[in-house]
């Protein structure tokens, strides 16, 4: 029995975190994850700021799902103020969200292929992703941070030429992704690194509350888009899922979702209605728990507003938190080699910049709870005092 620490800076990791693998020879028997290297305190900065500032801040929590964060936050604000944006705005949100999902999934797969040293497919994936990045830049003006959503609508309108270019580029992306899918399916080497490696059964996935492509790769048929009003009203969305439960399923899931997203965008572009892109909304006092399917899975924004859209309190739960738990608790168990452990870690598409949410420092060693629970206790105490 010996311990093998990775990170925080390591050739196999793109972001700083420390993984401690407990090994028996080459076999991994247990693992531990040490987080907290890039905590920036976004929630604390957000408190007491107007929503316009917080929207830019939420975008900078994660640069890969940089549409999903403001998307969730802004739709939460709209749900508080009972304001439904115009249909054209809803459609353009869908287009941006899905383009964002495509580029996120392609880079995730590229990094996985690079992690298993299949450089050809890795670089192919990165290269086709540039086509999607071009679209995002053409539409919003920036490659990574779009600032696309505003309360009551979106920031800019599509031009006719934009729509034509979207369809054109996506056609290319689609045919290429079909080709990579076939290459991945038929490659013997990749088969060895992916089939039956990093198994997680459906029960385990539900048990650790895995979300997103990781859960859907284990046969959990759930996607928050099935409950999203736009997708329900105009797209009759059906989630894709697989039941192999291993690395192969999770990588394949991402390819499948890219193809699915392309279909959704195509439909949105063809049916894009005319009309305004923004309307006025008044934001009242209120609180909400709003969820949306980010590229990596369920993203929850729980927040409280004061008058005129000032954010009083905010809690953000990102998808990598449960997925990392799933990875450590179930997938690493009995991984045959250490090299496979790296490959498994990359299939959950970890985003550490998202994950660094709470740091609890307690010098006295008192038992400490998350902020949410403390708030509840404080309120209960206040109620008791009032009664007296």
């Amino acid at each position: 029995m010996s311990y093998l620490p990775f990170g925080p800076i390591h050739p196999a990791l793109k972001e700083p975190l420390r993984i401690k693998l407990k090994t028996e020879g080459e076999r991994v028997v247990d693992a531990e994850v040490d987080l907290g290297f890039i905590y920036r305190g976004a929630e604390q900065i957000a408190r007491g700021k107007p929503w316009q500032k917080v929207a830019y801040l939420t975008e900078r929590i994660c640069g890969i799902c940089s549409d999903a964060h403001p998307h969730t936050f802004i739709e939460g604000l709209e749900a508080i103020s009972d304001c439904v944006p115009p249909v054209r705005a809803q459609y353009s949100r869908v287009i941006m969200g899905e383009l964002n999902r495509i580029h996120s999934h392609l880079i995730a797969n590229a990094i996985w292929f690079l992690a298993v040293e299949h450089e050809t497919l890795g670089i192919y994936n990165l290269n086709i992703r540039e086509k999607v990045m071009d679209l995002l830049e053409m539409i919003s003006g920036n490659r990574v941070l779009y600032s696309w959503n505003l309360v009551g609508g979106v920031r800019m309108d599509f031009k006719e030429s934009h729509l034509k270019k979207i369809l054109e580029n996506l056609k290319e992306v689609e045919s290429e992704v079909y080709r990579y899918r076939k290459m991945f399916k038929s490659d013997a080497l990749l088969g060895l690194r992916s089939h039956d490696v990093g198994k997680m059964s459906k029960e385990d996935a539900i048990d650790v509350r895995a979300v997103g492509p990781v859960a859907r790769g284990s046969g959990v048929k759930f996607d928050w888009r099935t409950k999203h009003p736009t997708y329900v009203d105009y797209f009759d969305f059906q989630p894709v899922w697989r039941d192999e439960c291993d690395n192969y399923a999770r990588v394949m899931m991402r390819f499948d979702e890219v193809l699915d997203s392309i279909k959704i965008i195509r439909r949105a572009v063809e049916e894009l209605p005319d009309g305004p892109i923004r309307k006025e909304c008044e934001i009242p006092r209120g609180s909400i728990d709003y969820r949306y399917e980010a590229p990596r899975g369920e993203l929850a924004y729980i927040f409280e507003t004061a008058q005129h859209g000032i954010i009083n309190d905010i809690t953000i739960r990102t998808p990598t938190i449960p997925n990392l738990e799933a990875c450590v608790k179930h997938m690493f168990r009995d991984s045959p080699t250490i090299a496979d452990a790296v490959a498994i870690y990359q299939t959950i598409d970890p985003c550490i910049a998202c994950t660094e949410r709470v740091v609890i420092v307690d010098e006295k060693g008192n038992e400490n709870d998350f902020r949410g629970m403390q708030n509840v206790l404080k309120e209960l105490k206040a109620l008791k005092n009032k009664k007296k």
Partner: protein
Amino acid sequence: MIRDFIRRRSINLGLVMTGGCNGCDIEIVALLSQRYDLEQYGIFYHNNPRECDALLVTGTVAKQWQEKLVELYNKVPEPKAVVAIGACALSGGIFQQETGKVAAPVREIIPVDAEVPGCPPRPAEIAIAVLKHVPPALASYRRKS
């Protein structure tokens, strides 16, 4: 002279993410793709600080990193160069606020040879900064006797 020539022609890069949002990092990863193809210039991306010639530092230097970044810098073998990338590394960006937990800018913690502004900068800008400033910084190095 031969030594300077070779140092200019083969550069290993190491990426250190010290906070920030990942946006700058994926733009660096995008440099590997065929469109930019960093390897055609003899630049190899290898994320190992003990083997690299130039460190790319992105992000806001979270408090946890403040001392570790100096340690990491000392572990990189001479001659070495540092490129700070993104608004976060240059000034702390959006996270530099009264309640923030960041120690940016990077230039106050370790010596920096080039800075690339932008949130995030385009991949081409990063490539230009690396190509323009890293080879001279490496070639002009003389061991102190």
